Each structure stands twice: as structure tokens, then as C-alpha cells.
């Protein structure tokens, strides 16, 4: 590990993010905030949803926003940089093991996802108030879940970004990201699937379920949620698996 090179790469990513800040903000917040407006304000305001749905929705939106940000921040640049222009080559030639180039991407993606997740809470709270009943009496657990969710998004981005060609980006969103979001318990709690037992078991292979339920357990514990132990075990397991797959794919892409 060469700390100077690693930090220089983080600084490079920060410079690029700062340069593209407007696009990143739109990309990160537009869709979640539209969901907040429609589901949280319109549906609740018009009486189609109960008032406490606002509180139930917010952790799911936070999970969605974090996962979307992390995957996008890691996968999209990687897909582009490994293509024809081979923009990543200069970093692969830096004097450190190439796995650290991938880990730097994961760290940068995790940080971006954390910032996005922490920014969406006040933004959504402002849009939804009054009637959002958030409690943060277990801040350490909340921070741990948020970190694992952010890490999951970045590791997922690494695995996807190193496995998918540029021509298949559309397919990645329709085959991987969209089903993950809809079956990820973002807009409903996992317990809402009680009446659909097969689906309820099947969605447990979706890491976003644990992200949404984990944030729900630490932000709005008054609603039914998966146990925090299950959330931690699953998120740690998925993160390890995705990081392993991502690093292997990264090695394969980097060295011919």
C-alpha cells in the first residue's frame, strides 16, 4: 500500500466530482426527491396512504439514494475508463498494487454514498414535514448501518463496473438495478410481504432489503423491521462477496 498514491487518487476523484457537482447533485437527488414528493406528499396528502407512511418511506428513500449514488459513482467511471480510451491506465501504472486502485474507487464511492444519504435525510424531512417521526436514539448503530449500506453500494458498483461492457449499461439498469430497487423494500417494509410468502423469501437475496430494513430499524424502530443482527450479518456478507468478486474482475480487466 502506497498511501501517497492512494490519497492522490482520492484527491483526483474529489477534483472530478467537484467539477461535475451539478450533474452529480441532479443524478443523486432528483429521482429520490420526486418519490418523496409523489409518495410522501401527494399520496399521503390525498388520503391514499396513511399519514405515518411518510416516516416509513424516508429510510427506504435514504437507502435507495445511497445505493444509487455508490453504484453510479463507482460503476460508471470504471466502465468508461476500461473501454477504448483506457483512461485508468495511468493509475494502474502508479507504484502500488493495482488492487489498491480498485479499493480507492470503493472508498471514494462509499464516501459519496454516505454524503448523499446524510443529505437526503434533511432534504426529505423538509419536504415531508410535518408528520415525520424520526428517532435517533441509537446513533452508533445508525452510523454502522449507514456505513455498511454505503460500502455495499460501492462494492456493488465495483463488481458491476468491472463485469459489464459499455454497450450493456442499459441492460445493467433494467436487469439488475431496477429489480433490486422494486424488490428492495424501499417503499414498503419487509413485513408487508407477509401475504406473499414466496416473494418474501425470494427478496432476501436482495442486499437492498437489508439496507432499507437496517435504516428503518435505526431511524423508525416503531415500524416492523428485520432484526439488526440479520441486517449486519447479511450486509457484511454481501459486502465481502461483492468486494471479492469486484477485485477479481478488476484484476482480470487490468492485466491481459
Amino acid at each position: 500500500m502506497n498511501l501517497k498514491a492512494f490519497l492522490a487518487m482520492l484527491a483526483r476523484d474529489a477534483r472530478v466530482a467537484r467539477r461535475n457537482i451539478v450533474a452529480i447533485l441532479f443524478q443523486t437527488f432528483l429521482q429520490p426527491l420526486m418519490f418523496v414528493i409523489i409518495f410522501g406528499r401527494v399520496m399521503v396528502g390525498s388520503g391514499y396512504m396513511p399519514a405515518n407512511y411518510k416516516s416509513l418511506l424516508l429510510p427506504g428513500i435514504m437507502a435507495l439514494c445511497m445505493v444509487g449514488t455508490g453504484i453510479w459513482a463507482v460503476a460508471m467511471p470504471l466502465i468508461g475508463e476500461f473501454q477504448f480510451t483506457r483512461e485508468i491506465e495511468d493509475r494502474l501504472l502508479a507504484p502500488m498494487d493495482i488492487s489498491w486502485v480498485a479499493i480507492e474507487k470503493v472508498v471514494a464511492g462509499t464516501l459519496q454514498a454516505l454524503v448523499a444519504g446524510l443529505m437526503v435525510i434533511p432534504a426529505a424531512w423538509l419536504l415531508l414535514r410535518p408528520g415525520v417521526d424520526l428517532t435517533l436514539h441509537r446513533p452508533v448503530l445508525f452510523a454502522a448501518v449507514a456505513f455498511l449500506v454505503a460500502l455495499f453500494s460501492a462494492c456493488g458498483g465495483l463488481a458491476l463496473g468491472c463485469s459489464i461492457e459499455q454497450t450493456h449499461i442499459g441492460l445493467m439498469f433494467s436487469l439488475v438495478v431496477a429489480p433490486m430497487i422494486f424488490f428492495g423494500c424501499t417503499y414498503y417494509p419487509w413485513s408487508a410481504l407477509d401475504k406473499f410468502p414466496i416473494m418474501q423469501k425470494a427478496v432476501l437475496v436482495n442486499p437492498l432489503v437489508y439496507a432499507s430494513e437496517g435504516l428503518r430499524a435505526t431511524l423508525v424502530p416503531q415500524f416492523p423491521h428485520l432484526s439488526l443482527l440479520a441486517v449486519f450479518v447479511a450486509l457484511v456478507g454481501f459486502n465481502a462477496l461483492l468486494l471479492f468478486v469486484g477485485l477479481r474482475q478488476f484484476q482480470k480487466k487490468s492485466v491481459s
Partner: protein
Amino acid sequence: MPAGIRTSELRKVYNTAPPLAAGSGGAFSFAAKRGKGKQPKPEVVALNGMSLEVRSGEIFCLLGPNGAGKSTTVGILTTRVRPTSGQAWIGDHDVWKEQTAVKRLIGVVAQRPNLDFSLTAREILIFHGAYFGLSSQERSSRSASLLERFKLTDRADQLVRGFSGGMMQRLSIARAMMHDPQVLFLDEPSSGLDPQTRLLLWEIIREYNQSGKTVLLTTHNMEEADALCQRLAIVDHGKIIALGTPQELKSSVPGGYLLRLRFGQQSTELLQRMQALAGVREVRATENNGMDVYADRGGPLIGEIANLALAASVELCDVHISEPSLENLFLHHTGRSLRE
């Protein structure tokens, strides 16, 4: 500390088309490998036992046609391609086993510009310097002087996305020099450059070499190899077929001159008579009723050849005379032109 380059019996077989990291080379020899019930996978032998030694402080050139294995050799020496077998060293470091140490010693200019499109020209140099641990002051002064040297100062703070091919190539070379590497690899550095920029590049490479650095460049341009290199290896089909100084290699061609002739028909009698001409060292029949005549003179032989053809009632259709050159050497060894 100056560092040389050494490879021993390097072999590289691709199971698919060589990726961009290895350039476009390698696609010359396909052998079917049978899978169980699957379509046979094509195998591309890009390097077939490449052994070479580049002395420290030398400008060495790998000359060969596209697909000869030059870029794969550079790919292995720069840690970007895993050899199927064999070993490579930069200085005392095994390239595959001590990658980080090797990466500290080398600067690489890829065949295709691979600049970071999200950054400006200056940022590309500054971040590259930061990856190699240069201090902030060193980064800023070195980047400014390299931008000036490569005539990029007026575009230094623009994103490189809008740069022309030549500008990108110049910036790629500046970037490779940014951390002052002991060994500089340039994979076809002058392709796409106009003649004026090419001369500037040659001058910069010579200067860099004069400060004691080793330079390995690949090219299929004989003029470049001739003008720049102290020693060169001619590469074909993943192997070195000739090695030496440009002068030594040129003088190893029988006679030096090459007369490429084409006749109305092939005639063994004519071939034998030409071999007997004074100054002719070797005559080879080639495709399409052609003959390659290696001789110690060019033009003065034409009259005698025309007379022989007339006497044998064979029409002389085409004559091309090449003075002693690396192209002749390549032709002599492979029967093919470098440009084919």
C-alpha cells in the same frame, strides 16, 4: 540508478484477441484448441520466445510490422500483460514478481493516448506526479516545464477531451517523463504526429537519453529506428530475427542494395544468368513473376539486367531500387515488406 531491460524466452498466448493494453499486435497465428463440445477457441501466439537485453542508458528500438509482438513485449515489461511463460527484468527487478518496484522505474507511453479525460492537461501531469510521490513544488515546476517543452502551455488548463491527436500524444509523453523514470517505454510514439512534431519528439528523446536514461521504443518506421536508436531488434512473428546497430544490420544485407524486379513471365534461366552478374550477391524468385536481386550497386545494374531479359525474350515490366536500408534487411529475413 540507471537500469537496463532483460527478457528471457518470453512467450505470450492470447485466448482471445489481444486487448487494448497490448496494442493491436499479435494477430498472426491461429491454432485451434479443442474444448469439450465447445467451439474451438482461437489462440493467438503473440510472443514466441523473445529474449533480449537492453543496456542501461541505451536507446533501443523494436522494429517490426503490425502484429509482430512489439506491443505485447512492452505490455509485459510494463506489468500490463501477464506472460504465458518466460521472465522479464527491469534493472534487478523481476517485472511480474516486483511490480511496484518496477513501476517506480518506468515511464510508459502507450500506442494509443490514454489520458484522463476528466482532467486538464496540467492536472494530468500534476496528479501523475502525485501518484509517484513528488512534492507539491516539484509537481508544479516539472509540469510547467514539461508543458512548455512540449508546446502545450497555452492549452494547459483546458480539459484534454478537445485536444487533437498530436497534442494528446505529446501530453502522453510529457506525462511519462513527469516522474523522471529511469526507463522510458514509447510504443509507436510518432504515429499520428506531423513531421515537425516528430523531429521535436526525437530531439526530446535524445536529450532524455543523454541524461543517462534507458529508452525502449517500438516502431514500424525504419527512418525513426535508423535516426534514433543505438541498437535495434527486428521482430517478426513474436521473435527477434535480427539484432544490432542500424549500421551493422544494414550491412548484413548481402550487397546492401535491393532491386525488386517484375517480369512478364518467370524464367529459371534468366534467374541463373542474373546470379552470375558482377556485384550480384543473391537472387530470389518472388510472387507474380518477381525477382529480388541483392547486389552491391543499384542503378548501374539495370542496363545489364535489361539486356539479359531481352536475350531471354522475357519482358521487364517493373524495376524498383532500394538503397541499403532496414527495410531491405526486413525483406531479406522475412520475404515481406515492413508495410505489408
